[in-house]
Every structure is written in structure tokens, then in C-alpha cells.
């Protein structure tokens, strides 16, 4: 890798870290919009002023906002996410397991949806403007209109309840084998796949079409190369970056889609943990979850950009 590419990649990663810092400020400020205060929220309306004051001091609520932010940020950077207000448990330990569960579910969905959507995208290009393409484009329009819970409950209603193939509630616990886990997440993973599939397929199709319509593909065709050689030597090297980009963007989308799907299937992941604590107005948990979701989302976007930089011959071989 040449120096300018390294520089660009470093710049992009640096920018991503800066963005993450800004996001942490934004999330922190977002949770300061509360009209009352946390102490009141914990102790309720009947609390004595003395008890409120004590709790405020313990929680550091009397410090100015920026001090509280820096304390929080310092904690986050050292792995200390604080304590949940609602039950006093350590957030980091609680999150650890749930993050693992969420990533497992998202990975299963990704492993199915990524190859499938690329394959279908290729099919759509191969049979462009013929019925497979039209069918694929048509389903996209419908699929982006379907809420996650419609797909989820349809699957529960027909596959779990009527057919009884999979459990309707995705309980996982530590002693489960890998196979049992897979069976448990089958329906939520299927839901996620259906949610991102059409979108990813359509974007893949556009990315490949864009490459296939380039003048250099025509040049290859006019050299008398076989279809296979044209795709392998001329289309593929140029299509990789946009396709990776599509995949990364959709994985980021998938991580967010997880929130609703986890609630549908009562899956013990981070999304459900977040939603539960939003209703309980448990600010430290919400901050921690929000930051982690944002970090995953931003990282996937950075990877997409870095791949695009590295794959660009103009940047790899400067003048």
C-alpha cells in the first residue's frame, strides 16, 4: 500500500473517531433535556428534600454538565459504564452477554442475507428488464414498505404457531449448544434477512449495472473475451468496492433493525435491554446502549469508506 492511501485511510479513521466523540457529546446532551432530574425520577414525588440532596451528591448531579460529561466519558473509555438506576446492577456486565447475543443474531442474519442478496442482485443484472429482474424490483418496493413486526408476527403466526417448526419466543441461555442457538434465532434471523434483503439486492444490482455499463466493459466485449473473462477480469475488480460498500451500509441497517426484532421475539439482546430501560427512564443504561449502537454503526460506515479508498486504483497508484 502506498503512502497516500495510508494517509487517506488514517484520515478517514481519525475522522470516524472524532465523529464518535461528537456523537458521545450529542448522546450526553440528548439525555440532559429532562425537565425534572434523575434524583427525582428515582425517588419519586414523595421524597424528602434531604434524601434528594444526598442522592444528587452521590450521583454527582451538582457538578456542571461538562464535568459530568468528562466523568462519564472517562468511565466509558476505561470500560466502566456506570450502574443502572432501576436495579443498581453494573451496566457493563449486563451489556456484555447481551451484546454477544445481539451480534450472534446479526451475524446469522448477515451470513444468510449477504450472499443471497448478491446472488439475487447478479441474477437481476443477468436477466435485466426480463421477468426475474422485474420480480426482484417489484418485491423490493413491497419489502421496504413492510414493518419489521409485520414480517416477524407473520412468521410467528404461520411458521411457529401453525406449523410448529420453530419456537415463537427466542430464549437463549448459556448451556445451549450452537445448534440449539441457531434454531432459537432462526425466526428472528429470517425476519432480519427479509428486512434487509430487498434493499441490499437493489443496491447490489445498481452497483453491478453501473460497472457493466462502463465503456471498458464494451472494450472487453470488443476484444472477443468470453462472458466469464469479462466478469472475472474487468467487472469484478471494479465492482468489489461498491458491493462491499452496499454490504456494510446494510449491516449497519441490520444492527438497528435488531432492536425491534429482539422485542418481537423476546430475545435477550441489547436492543431489548435498551427499549426496556427507555420506558424505565434509566438514563445511564440508555446512554451506554446508544453509544455502543452508534459506535457499531459508525465503524461499519468507516469500513465501507476504507474499502472504497483502498480499492480505488487512482488513489493506490497516484500520478
Amino acid at each position: 500500500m502506498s503512502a497516500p492511501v495510508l494517509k487517506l485511510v488514517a484520515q478517514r479513521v481519525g475522522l470516524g473517531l472524532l465523529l464518535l466523540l461528537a456523537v458521545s457529546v450529542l448522546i450526553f446532551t440528548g439525555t440532559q433535556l429532562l425537565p425534572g432530574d434523575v434524583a427525582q425520577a428515582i425517588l419519586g414525588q414523595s421524597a424528602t428534600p434531604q434524601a434528594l440532596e444526598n442522592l444528587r451528591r452521590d450521583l454527582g448531579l451538582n457538578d456542571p454538565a461538562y464535568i459530568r460529561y468528562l466523568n462519564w466519558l472517562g468511565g466509558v473509555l476505561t470500560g466502566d459504564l456506570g450502574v443502572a438506576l432501576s436495579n443498581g446492577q453494573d451496566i457493563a456486565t449486563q451489556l456484555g452477554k447481551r451484546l454477544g447475543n445481539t451480534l450472534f443474531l446479526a451475524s446469522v442474519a448477515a451470513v444468510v442475507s449477504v450472499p443471497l442478496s448478491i446472488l439475487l442482485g447478479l441474477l437481476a443484472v443477468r436477466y435485466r428488464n426480463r421477468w426475474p429482474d422485474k420480480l426482484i424490483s417489484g418485491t423490493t418496493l413491497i419489502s421496504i414498505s413492510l414493518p419489521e413486526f409485520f414480517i416477524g408476527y407473520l412468521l410467528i403466526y404461520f411458521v411457529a404457531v401453525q406449523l410448529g417448526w420453530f419456537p415463537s419466543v427466542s430464549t437463549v441461555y448459556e448451556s445451549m449448544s450452537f445448534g440449539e442457538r441457531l434454531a432459537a434465532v432462526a425466526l428472528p434471523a429470517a425476519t432480519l434477512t427479509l428486512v434487509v434483503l430487498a434493499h441490499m439486492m437493489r443496491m447490489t444490482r445498481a452497483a453491478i449495472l453501473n460497472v457493466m455499463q462502463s465503456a471498458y466493459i464494451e472494450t472487453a466485449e470488443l476484444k472477443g473475451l468470453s462472458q466469464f473473462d469479462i466478469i472475472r477480469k474487468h467487472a469484478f475488480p471494479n465492482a468489489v468496492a461498491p458491493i462491499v460498500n452496499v454490504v456494510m451500509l446494510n449491516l449497519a441497517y441490520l444492527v438497528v433493525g435488531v432492536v425491534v426484532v429482539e422485542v418481537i421475539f423476546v430475545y435477550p439482546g441489547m436492543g431489548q435491554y435498551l427499549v426496556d430501560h427507555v420506558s424505565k427512564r434509566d438514563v445511564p443504561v440508555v446512554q451506554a446502549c446508544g453509544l455502543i449502537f452508534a459506535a457499531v454503526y459508525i465503524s461499519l460506515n468507516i469500513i465501507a469508506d476504507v474499502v472504497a479508498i483502498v480499492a480505488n486504483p487512482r488513489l493506490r497508484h497516484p500520478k
Partner: protein
Amino acid sequence: MLKLSRIPASAAIGIILTAAFVFAAVFAPWIAPYGEGQIVGSLWQPSSAAHWLGTDNLGRDLLSRMIYGARTTLLIAALATALSFSMGSILGFTAAVVGGWIDQVMSRLVDLLMSIPTLIFALVVLSVLPANTLTLILVMGVLDSTRVYRLARAVAVDINVMDFVEAAKLRGEGRGWIIFREILPNALSPLVAELGLRFIFAVLFLSALSFLGLGVQPPEADWGGMVKENKEGIVFGIPAALIPAAAIALLAISVNLVADWILNRTTDLKGGRGNG
């Protein structure tokens, strides 16, 4: 001129269904057979002549709840869209035409807001804000305006560098003429199509929030909340929750069909006749 026979079947279906939903929303109190919170029988009754869609988890008439739900869902989504759209497009146009540091500041801020997934950011903010309809509309409208801003700015920047805009500037035209007579007519069609997409997004987003218990609060009926209310029935083979979910999907598809048609008619910058 727009000829009716030129409208493709898919778009016609979209228009008719969308109109039907809007009709239900506007005239809900007149067409709903029962009241919004009126308990009419035992819970989760199957469909019958008296209750076409059966009853819900508290024994209320599901059809009536659906009709009132249309009203809540469409109204909140429409208001949020109106907010996001007016805010996003005005700021986007301003950024494009004025440029300079105003453009820089606004665009970076939007980049920042968009770097957090909308749902996650909404959850963070809703964890501390009071749960009421106004909060919902404001949060949804502000978060979604970032997307409208990006589109409006991009479209306006593209048009702003065209020679006909330069020609108008050389003629000595004021900023008002340039924005409203030169740029806006050319930016309108992509923005109108976007309006449809933003509305769909608002419906889906509101429904997701209500489904998570963070949107419209019971006993008011809205489709996402109705899915939540009736979801326990699914495991017993009672499909009541699927009905509001399907309504959301159907509304989104209908609006999508219309938006898709508008977008297809206007993707070329041919302008002039027949592009309404």
C-alpha cells in the same frame, strides 16, 4: 396535460388505496361502527357480522379501532412529515444558494445527526422527554428533516450551477426570482416524490415507536400500538395483531406506488410539458 388513461395500473391502485386510508382517517367518527374505547364484548372474538374484524385484547371492536387508528397514525405522520419537509427543504435550499460558512455549519451538523441511527437517537431522547404527541412529532420531524435537507441541498446545488441560473444572475435577477422561478420549479418533482417516501418513513417510524411502547400511549388507538396490544394473542393462534400490521404495510405500499410513479415520470430533466 395529465391523461387519466396514462396512469399505470399500479399507480392507480396506489392512489385509490391511499385515498381510502385518508378518507377513513378524516371521517373516522362518522364511519366507525363503535367508539374508540368502547368495550363491546369479550376479548379476541373472531370476526362476525357485528364485528367484521372481531374484537381486541380488551374486547373492543377491532374495525372501529382500526379506523380511529388510521386517524391517529396518519395525522401524526403527516404533521411530522410536514415539519421535516418544510424545515429540511428551506434549510437545504438556503444552504445551497447562500453557501459559505452557513452551508458548512448546517451540513456538518446534519452529518453528525445522521451518523447515529435515527431509531437509536430517538430512543435516547425519548428516555427523558415527556411521552406525548407533541414530543413525538417534534422528535420525528427534526430527526427526519436531516434527510430532506440533504436531498434539497443536493438538488439545489446541482441546479444552482447550471448556465440558466448564471444567466439569471447576469441579468441582475434577485435571490427571490432565482430561488422561486429558476430553481424551485426544477427541484419540485424530486422533492414531491421524496415527500411520499418521507411520509412512509414517518408512518413506519411512528409504528415502530408505538410498538415498542414509546410512541402513542394507550388508550388512544394507533396501528403500531394496536400490534403491541394484541401481540400476546399470536401464540394462541389469534391473528388480531396482524391486522394493524398489515394496514401499515398496505398504506406504505400504496404511497410507495404513487411516489414511484411520480419519480419515474420526472427522472429526466426534460422539463416542460407532460411533467406536471
